[in-house]
Each structure stands twice: as structure tokens, then as C-alpha cells.
């Protein structure tokens, strides 16, 4: 019994679904069926909302607008021109998706609350059109007489046929949503939400992921809007109004923003809430507001999230077994002749501060280059520019002979660049295994269509985990493979960061202050690992302050000061160079501070 329960809440959910079906078929009154249908419509809308709000982590306030647009397409075509369901439904899906695609690129660039407000503006715009474009939309009164659903000559009556139809769509949509996000592709979103900088440098096309989520959410909302209008029989601006957005947001937050069950639970609960509290009537929206506030303060994961946590505490899952390490196909090498990385004349200024004033660096394959310099000398700026996190003002960066200046970080990563960060950007809830596996998302071809097309467990995830295990063994963390990153001490986190950077088989690896916070044993182990990797052909750049770590490890060293290279050569020579000593300690003749 224990083992059966520990496998997860699946059986319980199946039972709940059966209970719901039984209620709908045998117990519910006609009014109850209508409520159930409306709940299904909302469930569909919230399932879509979870893509952009839960997985992409962006607070979109346009879901109501997409819903309204889908509703109006079906309403206008059905009421004015008598078009039937097979013609109007696809259009109701496409129109909001097209709108989402159009606004996505500019709007998704914005940070959190700007994005929310931009989407609010879009939704106000849609409402404005709905109310004022009377000739098309029927204005404030809307259009009556929208036909019911008619498929292949068969008319679906109100009552349980329509309810079953709507919930059929909910089941299909829920299955698709679960399938799309269950595997390696879905893991990428977890990384994108919590460590967006790292996600880019690990090869995840963050921009495209967000656009996909917005378009998907609009698609689902459009479908929900169409079904809504068929249920009501009329279309009016109420379908594009803010209360529907409010309801959607509340259901997502109360139910749980990343679980299919959460969308369904939230919809069922909040559609029936006003019924259970008869006295509320017109003030049911106040109850929604209060529910939203209470949920966000006390159960931010939603009811399903809280239930999951309790379940896991009562019946801890046995968890996936540690996979056997798999070798990965070798990356097609860059032209072996020529430097692995070539930087020419790199310049960058931030406002009035010249971070880099023109530097030239060559990194040969299999070479370890140490970069030292006092604080503010431009070392991290250099790492950022080369990895694509920022654009240089002037200069060129060539990776394996190919010009990568100004390319987006994910594209440079896919060409063979990897970098680690001063503070390891790990997701606390992810296991070491998954943290490294997600770095292989692009290499394993993880994507939306791939996830949908794969039956059963996601093969890309299994492959990525197998290959990740090989890298984890390489850095010596196999004992902690299933430990959540949040539970690791700093030294181990550093190794996870390095493992992650290695997972996609880069040709150049840049490490930004890797020795910071490491005890001597850990630093020595890391140095040995880097030496081994370099001997295998990896080009390594180590930026650090800890001379005892960098200088013995490096084949060659460079010292930066105020954005320029002031010394270059063998590590010992650079360490003893006059200009370097002066940069760190000041000139011998300077008076000591009083």
C-alpha cells in the first residue's frame, strides 16, 4: 500500500475524474450541468494560462483578451453569417494565436511588471474595440443568436451532451499540456524562470520559449472563448472584460500554476464558489479578490501544490534510479588549426565607465589561460561579452574561426562556448542530475513538438540524464546525483556549475572566479579536473584572484587593469611584473593613507 501511494497521486486523480463524470451524468441538475460546462470552459482557459504564467513565469494580463477574441470570432461568424462549429472553432483558435504572435516579440522583451502592464493595455484595447466597433461586434449589447455546436449534422443539445463535449476538449488539452511539459523541454522552463542568465548561456533560446508559451496560451484561450459563446448563445463585451481575466488568474493561483490538476481544481472550485455562498450574489468578485489574496499569501503553490507537498511528506517518493552513464556523440570539432577563441580590439563602456579599452586575446586548443587583475579591471565584462550576455561597442570575437560577435548567448553556446558564473546560478529544487541534464536540452533536440510526439516517458530526458551522469562522474559528484542543488555545500555547487558547463561538450570554457569560496582540497581537485580537460583539447580561461590557484594551473597568464592588458606571458613572469604588482598594491613611492 505504501509503495502504491508513494508512486504519486495519479490513482487518486483518476478516481476524482471518475467521480466528476459520475456527478455530471447522474446527479447534476440542468443548472448544475450548465455550471459544470462553464467550469470546463474556464478550465481550458486556465490550462492555457499555465503555459505563460506558470511555466514561463510571466504575469500576462492578456489571457482575457485572447479569450474574448476567440469568443467574438465564433460569435460574429456564427450569429451574423451562420457559420458552424467546424469552420468557426479553428478560426477562434488561430485569431488569438496570431495576435499573440504579433505582440510577443516586443512585449516579451520586457521585464516582469512592464510585461504585465503591456498585456493589460492590449486587453483594454480589445475591450475598447468590442464596445465601440458596433457595426461588427454589435457594440455594448453584443450579438444574440449564436448557434449551438453542430458537428457533421449532429446538433449537441444543451445539458450533458454539451458538458461532455467541453470536458472532452479539457481532457485533450490537459493531456497535451501535460505531455508537452513533462520532459526535458519542460525542465528548461524551470531553469529559465529561476536562472535566466544561466539558461541562455546553456543554449536555451529563452526568447523563443516565451513566445511559444504565449502563443499556446492564446490558442487555448481562443478555444475556451469559442466554447463559452456556444454555451451562452450570445456574444457581448462581457467576454472580453476584466472580470474574466481576474477569474482566470485567481483559478490559476488558487489551483496551482504548474499542474494540470490545478487548473481543473481551480476552475471547478471558483465557478461553484458563488453557488455555495448564495448570499454573495453580486459580490462574488469580492470573494474572488479575497481568495486570490489569501492564496498568494498563504499557499503560493496553490491547493494542488500544497497537497503535493503534504503527500510527499506522508509518502516520500522512491524517486528515479540513478541512470547509468552514457557516452555522448562527439561534437563536430572546429577547424583544428587556429585558435579556439580569438578576441580582437574588444571595447565596452557603461555610461562613463570604460570597462574594456581594447583587448586582444588568443586561446589555443588545449591551453589554460589565466586572467588576473584587480577589481574593476574588466574581467567579468570580458567574460560577459565573449559569452554574448552583452554586446561589445567595438571589436570582434571568433570562436573556432567563426565570428560570433554580438550573437545571442544561446547561439554562441550552441557553437561551443560555455561559461560558469561567480555565484553558481542553480535552481535549488532541481537535483544535480537534472541540473546537468537540462544543459543538454538543445543537444538532445528537446522541443515542444518533440515532447508532444513522444509517447510514454520522454526519451530526450532519459538520454540527457544518461549523458549528464557521465559528466557528473567526471567531476566526482556521483554520490550526490539525486540531491537537490539547494542542499549542497558551496564547493559542490561550484562543481555542479562546472559539470553543467561541460555537459554540452564545449570547445571553450570560461570560468569566472571558480576558486572563490573553495577550501584547499576542493580547489586542488578542480585544478586537476581543468588540467585533465585541457589535455583532452578543451580551451580553458580561468578568471580569478586566488594566485595560488590560477598561476600553477595556467599555461599562460594575462593581467588586466582598467580595461587594458598590462602584462602577458608565463604565469610566473606576469606575477612578478612591475605593472601587475603596482596595479594590485600601488606604486612603491605612494604614501600610505593616514
Amino acid at each position: 500500500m505504501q509503495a502504491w501511494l508513494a508512486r504519486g497521486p495519479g490513482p487518486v486523480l483518476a478516481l476524482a475524474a471518475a467521480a466528476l463524470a459520475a456527478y455530471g451524468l447522474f446527479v447534476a441538475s440542468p443548472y448544475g450541468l450548465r455550471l459544470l460546462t462553464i467550469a470546463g470552459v474556464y478550465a481550458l482557459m486556465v490550462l492555457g494560462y499555465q503555459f505563460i504564467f506558470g511555466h514561463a513565469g510571466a504575469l500576462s494580463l492578456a489571457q482575457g483578451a485572447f479569450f474574448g477574441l476567440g469568443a467574438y470570432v465564433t460569435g460574429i461568424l456564427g450569429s451574423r453569417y451562420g457559420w458552424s462549429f467546424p469552420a468557426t472553432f479553428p478560426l477562434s483558435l488561430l485569431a488569438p494565436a496570431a495576435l499573440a504572435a504579433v505582440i510577443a516579440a516586443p512585449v516579451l522583451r520586457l521585464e516582469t511588471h512592464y510585461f504585465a502592464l503591456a498585456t493589460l493595455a492590449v486587453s483594454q484595447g480589445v475591450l475598447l474595440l468590442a464596445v465601440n466597433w458596433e457595426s461588427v461586434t454589435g457594440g455594448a449589447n453584443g450579438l444574440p443568436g449564436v448557434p449551438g455546436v453542430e458537428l457533421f449534422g449532429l446538433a449537441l443539445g444543451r445539458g450533458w451532451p454539451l458538458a461532455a463535449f467541453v470536458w472532452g476538449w479539457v481532457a485533450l488539452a490537459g493531456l497535451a499540456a501535460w505531455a508537452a511539459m513533462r520532459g526535458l523541454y519542460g525542465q528548461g522552463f524551470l531553469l529559465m524562470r529561476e536562472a535566466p542568465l544561466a539558461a541562455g548561456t546553456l543554449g536555451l533560446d529563452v526568447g523563443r520559449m516565451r513566445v511559444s508559451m504565449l502563443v499556446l496560451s492564446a490558442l487555448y484561450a481562443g478555444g475556451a472563448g469559442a466554447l463559452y459563446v456556444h454555451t451562452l448563445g450570445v456574444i457581448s463585451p462581457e467576454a472580453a472584460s476584466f472580470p474574466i481575466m481576474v477569474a482566470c488568474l485567481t483559478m490559476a493561483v488558487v489551483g496551482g500554476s504548474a499542474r494540470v490538476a490545478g487548473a481543473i481544481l481551480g476552475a471547478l472550485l471558483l465557478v461553484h464558489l458563488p453557488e455555495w455562498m448564495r448570499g454573495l450574489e453580486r459580490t462574488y468578485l469580492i470573494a474572488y479578490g479575497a481568495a486570490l489574496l489569501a492564496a498568494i499569501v498563504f499557499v503560493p503553490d496553490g491547493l494542488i501544490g500544497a497537497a503535493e507537498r503534504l503527500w510527499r511528506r506522508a509518502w516520500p517518493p522512491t524517486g528515479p534510479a540513478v541512470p547509468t552513464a552514457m557516452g555522448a556523440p562527439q561534437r563536430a570539432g572546429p577547424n583544428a588549426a587556429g585558435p579556439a577563441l580569438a578576441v580582437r580590439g574588444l571595447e565596452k563602456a557603461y555610461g562613463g565607465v570604460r570597462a574594456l579599452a581594447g583587448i586582444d586575446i588568443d586561446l589555443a586548443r588545449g591551453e589554460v589561460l589565466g586572467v588576473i587583475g584587480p577589481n574593476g579591471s574588466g574581467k567579468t565584462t570580458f567574460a560577459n561579452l565573449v559569452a554574448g550576455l552583452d554586446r561589445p561597442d567595438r571589436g570582434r570575437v571568433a570562436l573556432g574561426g567563426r565570428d560570433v560577435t554580438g550573437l545571442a548567448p544561446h547561439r554562441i553556446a550552441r557553437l561551443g562556448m560555455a561559461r560558469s558564473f561567480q555565484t553558481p546560478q542553480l535552481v535549488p529544487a532541481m537535483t544535480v542530475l537534472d541540473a546537468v541534464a537540462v544543459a543538454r536540452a538543445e543537444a538532445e533536440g528537446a522541443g515542444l513538438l518533440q515532447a508532444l510526439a513522444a509517447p510514454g516517458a520522454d526519451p530526450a530526458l532519459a538520454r540527457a540524464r544518461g549523458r549528464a551522469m557521465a559528466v557528473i562522474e567526471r567531476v566526482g559528484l556521483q554520490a550526490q546525483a539525486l540531491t537537490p542543488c539547494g542542499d549542497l555545500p558551496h564547493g559542490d555547487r561550484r562543481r555542479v556549475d562546472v559539470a553543467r558547463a561541460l555537459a554540452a561538450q564545449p570547445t571553450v570554457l570560461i570560468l569566472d572566479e571558480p576558486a572563490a569560496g573553495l577550501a584547499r582540497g576542493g580547489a586542488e581537485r578542480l585544478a586537476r579536473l581543468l588540467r585533465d580537460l585541457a589535455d583532452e583539447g578543451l580551451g580553458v580561461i580561468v578568471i580569478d584572484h586566488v594566485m595560488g590557484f590560477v598561476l600553477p594551473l595556467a599555461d599562460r597568464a594575462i593581467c588586466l587593469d582598467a580595461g587594458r592588458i598590462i602584462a602577458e606571458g608565463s604565469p610566473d613572469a606576469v606575477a612578478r611584473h612591475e605593472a601587475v604588482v603596482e596595479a594590485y598594491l600601488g606604486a612603491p613611492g605612494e604614501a600610505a593613507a593616514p
Partner: protein
Amino acid sequence: MLTAQLLLNGLALGAAYALAALGFVLVLNATGAVNFAQGDTVMAGGFLAVALATLLPQEVGLPGLLLLPLVMAGMAAFGLVFAWVAYVPLRERPPVTVFISTIAVGIILANAANAIFGAAPHAAPPLVGGGQVALAGLALSRQSISIIAVAALLIAGLALLLGYTQLGRKLRATAQDPEMARALGIRVGVMIGLSFALAMALAGAAGLLLANQFFVSASDGGALMLKAYIAVVIGGWGRIGGAVLGALLIALFEVGVAAWASYPVAEGLLYVGLMAILLLRPQGLLGEAARRRA
């Protein structure tokens, strides 16, 4: 003359918007949180004025100006409750949770107003009196002039408070760097509460000013929120003077376009303008987002 009257209307509207935008900036600077309920708070202030006005004996014809301190005090108290309920429990959480909690408060306010007053527009009594005043050979609306005067006084008062008093310095210090402020012995919690109270008081004043000439209805909140936001984006994110300037520009635009075409056209163009600003003028945005230390 028509243009003088239009200009005056625009300035009056802009003055009220400026108060709303200032409240928005105050909360933003003090807490880094975007207050989605800002528009609904203005609306609530307007309705508070409407409710209190019923207590004023009608026959005596007392000016609505008397309501101003009451409305501001009431809304300041609300501001403290707001901070305690929607901000303080969520301080350690990601910012999106505060957005959602303020959305929730806005929903509660809007629907409470709807439940109590109904959906129709209401009017509060005029500040000093209705009718017109002859000035420089023109007949100008007394209410418009009163709005501009009151708003100007409040804005000047705020500028004095923030710029020249010790309390103002403490508020600004808390806004700039709460950790450092705490280390200097400033009671950050109290300062945050005060910032909310001040912001809500200003929003309440804006509501009172708007409620006579421009009416107030329960559904006003969303559009007002967007206008406060546009004002702040135009004027430079987080800058107080900029918020006032942005608010005036929006109001003049709105009044001008509405006179030339219609009000819905003005609103639509405003949203288009907002999208254009968000896309084309990153300066206002980059200045706010802190650079992530890689």
C-alpha cells in the same frame, strides 16, 4: 474661448492624474513594488468623498474642500492596512507575488464600490463652488481652477516634505537603499508604512478632485492605473517631477484628442502610445532595472 477652456480642462485633469501618478511613484520608490491597485485607490477616494458628502448638510452648501483632509486621512489609514495585508507578508518573495496581491486588493476595492454604490457614475460636490470665474476677459470654470490650485499645493507640500525635512530624507533613504537605511538606525518598516499612507492619501485626494467634474464609477480603476503608469514611464521611471510632467501630457493629449475626435479614440491612441513607448524608449526602462551581477 474654446481653446482656453480646453487647456484648463486638460490641466485640471492632468493635475489630478499627477497626484495619482505621484502615489504610484512613492510606493514604487519605497518598495520596488508596482501597485496595481493605484487606479482603484483613486476611485475609492472618489467614492469616499461621495459618501462623506452625504453627511454634509446640503442646504448650507459647504464646499467640497472641507472633505479633503477627511478623505486624505481615511485613505492614509487604508494605506497602512494595505501595506500590512498586501505587501508586508510578501516582502521576501519574488516581486510578481506583490503584483498579484495588489491586483487582488484592486479587485476587492472595485467590487466593493460596485456593491455599495452600483455601477452608475457618481459625483462629489465641487471643491469651492460651481459656475465660472471671469479672468483676463475669459470665462473659466471655477472647479477647474480649484483642482489645479489644490493639486499644486499638495505637490508643493510633498516636494517640501521630501526635499527639506528630516522625515523626507529618511523616506528617501529607505527608498534608495533599505539595508543601508536600517543600518543607519532608520526604522524601515515605519518608513514603508508611511510611504504607503502618503501614496494612498494622494490617491484619495486625486479621487476627490476628479469626482465632481469628471465623475467617478466603480470600473474606473483599470484605465486610471494605466494612465498613472504611462505618466511614470514618460517622465522617467521613478522620478517624481517626471511623473507630474507625464501626467499633464497625458491629460492634455486626452482632452485634445477627445475634443477633436471622441473619447474612445483618445483612449485607444493612448494605449497605442503606451505600447510604442514600451517598445521604442528603453531609456526609461533600463534606468530602473538593476543590472544582474553575472
